[in-house]
């Protein structure tokens, strides 16, 4: 029972850290960045190439992945999403799906479809034994990173000037620009932060589940999106709680009901939550809050 709870939390914290990126971009830019999962994959490859081929130390490989993803996120925003700032949300959504396919196919060209086994970059964290229960260093590292990122993001948006600008842009772009806020700059910053987070999520995801392929980010991306909606999209603590709950429900459904039906059960729970609370667990009536 406790074993399963711990597996569930470590799986859920991977979903949670991806969901944080989704919710961040959605909260500010009001768009679903479906390419988020693929930026995670690029982050994974960046860390793999520097860490495995070039033998860079872990911190440098992760830093490199963060830089690559941040730049990539800003470039994608400038090239693909900025021209559509005033287009319908459906057009932006379709563009995001296009970017997602583009990134997958570029990765296919560069790294081919042969999977790579990702070296565990969190192996320096020791095992923790509590009684008979063993928690792996990777699970511990993922959960801790996730909490740190969540707290940092909440503080950033609540306390700093840039965070204030973000919340303003999220509420009303027109009014924000009248108040002298650089709307485009703020949205770019959001993408930079979201994509940097994606790189960290990529390293954590691949350290926990070490098969790296061009489609690695796609399914966790969709699950994390579900987690973000579950917790109330736009809400940072909501993404965290949604992610962890999703992971725990998935593992419990597998363990106690059926391995075949686990996904069906996860999504059935999601449907019930959304019927009872259409804005998600922590979603407010004003969902603009970040």
């Amino acid at each position, binding site marked *: 029972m406790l074993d399963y709870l711990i597996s569930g939390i470590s799986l859920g914290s991977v979903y949670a850290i991806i969901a944080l990126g989704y919710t961040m971009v959605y909260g500010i830019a009001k768009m679903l960045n479906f390419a988020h999962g693929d930026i995670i994959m690029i982050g994974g490859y960046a860390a793999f190439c520097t860490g495995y081929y070039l033998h860079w130390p872990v911190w440098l490989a992760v830093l490199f992945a963060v830089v690559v993803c941040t730049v990539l996120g800003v470039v994608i925003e400038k090239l693909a999403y900025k021209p559509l700032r005033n287009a319908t949300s459906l057009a932006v959504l379709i563009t995001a799906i296009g970017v997602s396919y583009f990134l997958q196919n570029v990765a296919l060209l560069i790294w081919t479809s042969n999977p790579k086994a990702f070296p565990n970059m969190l192996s320096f964290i020791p095992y923790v034994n509590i009684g008979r229960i063993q928690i792996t260093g990777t699970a511990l590292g993922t959960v801790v990173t996730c909490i740190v990122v969540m707290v940092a993001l909440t503080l950033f948006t609540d306390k700093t000037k840039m965070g204030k600008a973000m919340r303003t842009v999220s509420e009303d772009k027109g009014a924000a620009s009248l108040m002298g806020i650089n709307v485009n700059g703020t949205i770019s910053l959001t993408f930079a932060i979201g994509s940097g987070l994606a790189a960290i999520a990529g390293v954590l995801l691949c350290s926990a589940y070490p098969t790296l392929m061009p489609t690695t980010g796609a399914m*966790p991306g969709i699950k994390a999106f579900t987690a973000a909606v579950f917790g109330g999209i736009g809400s940072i603590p909501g993404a965290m709680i949604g992610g962890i709950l999703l992971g725990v429900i998935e593992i419990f459904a597998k363990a106690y009901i059926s391995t075949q039906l686990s996904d069906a059960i996860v999504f059935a729970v999601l449907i019930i939550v959304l019927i009872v609370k259409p804005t998600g667990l922590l979603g407010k009536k004003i969902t603009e809050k970040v």
Partner: protein
Amino acid sequence: MMKKVLSVLVAGVMALSIVACGATNDASANTGADANNNTTADGSLTGTLKLGMIGPLTGGAALYGNAVDHGVQIAVEEINALGTGFQIDYQAEDDEHDAEKSVNAYNQLKDWGAQVIAGTVTTTPCIAVSAEAYSDRMFMLTPSASSTDVTANKDNMFQLCFSDPNQGSASAKYIAENNLATDVAIIYNNSDAYSSGIYQTFVDAAAEVGLNIVSTTTFTDDTQNDFSVQLADIQQSGAELVFLPIYYQAASLIFQQADQIGLDVKWFGVDGMDGILSLEGFDTSLAEGVMLLTPFAADATDDLTVNFVTKFEEKFGETPIQFAADGYDCPYAIYRALEYYAANNGGLDVTDMSNEELCEILISVFTDPGFSCDGVTGLAMSWNAAGEVNKAPKAVVIENGVYVGL
């Protein structure tokens, strides 16, 4: 979600096009070949057989097509060097792993005068070409197209490789005959036809040979990250061996997570496991002791394999993969079948025989219970009327990061 809808649509369109190809079959009547026209007095096989091969020699799947082509070339050279009065004239055509180009390649081989086809290498083109060959009464032996759709309802179509589901029953028999275990656990991918097909036949055969299946768990393409629940179930069930009819990507995760919880069992995989050692960055010590059913291991020490591998390395400068071995066995199977017919029917001269006549002869021999032949991918290969091969499977075990024959 959108991606799912799209991929389902695309898959639907593909399925429709396959059905459309298959629907062109018209059951052409048996031509009633009278093979006695071509007999020689002493029961020997003579003449020149025109053998065509179709496979992807260029494009994304070229690795497989070229491997088969190279394997066939070596076998043809060997047969021609025997000096028996029987010769093979061989020609390969490229299909780029495309169904339409594959049918064109087939037509080119027909114009060239091909009497028998060794091919095609990949499954989708093979389904298209076999429909044509069925109405033309052209005998086809595919080295590597393993789907049952390839042979379904086509009496002229035979497989040299195990069909996907047959690997399951072969694995169950191998485990039982070699007393590897009696309590067996299975993890399979229930969103994948290959994996569930093998699982089903494994379960059926396991009941016959007396294996106890103590734990059955599944995963899907979408949940192949976390196997903690499946592995905990295996640990509680007390299974001695875990059967993994899955591809190596998921298997690498299973080995890693089993190592973390200290699960000590035997692992048994099928040909989808082949490739785990070349997975970049994978710690091969995790796969130590893993057994897998594969028809060919290049480092096996039997005479047939050593001879083939040595010649292949000399001629092409690389170690043959399983596809090359499949290709190598094709001309031999056809040669042995013709030889068998000649010996039992007072000889045979194949020069300028029509493909219809040869087709009936070869079908009768391949489905004859008395016929079998040895190859590098299996000893005592025989075929059933459905065109599926029955051969003693070879198993290899991973020791010190390389395959070792069992």
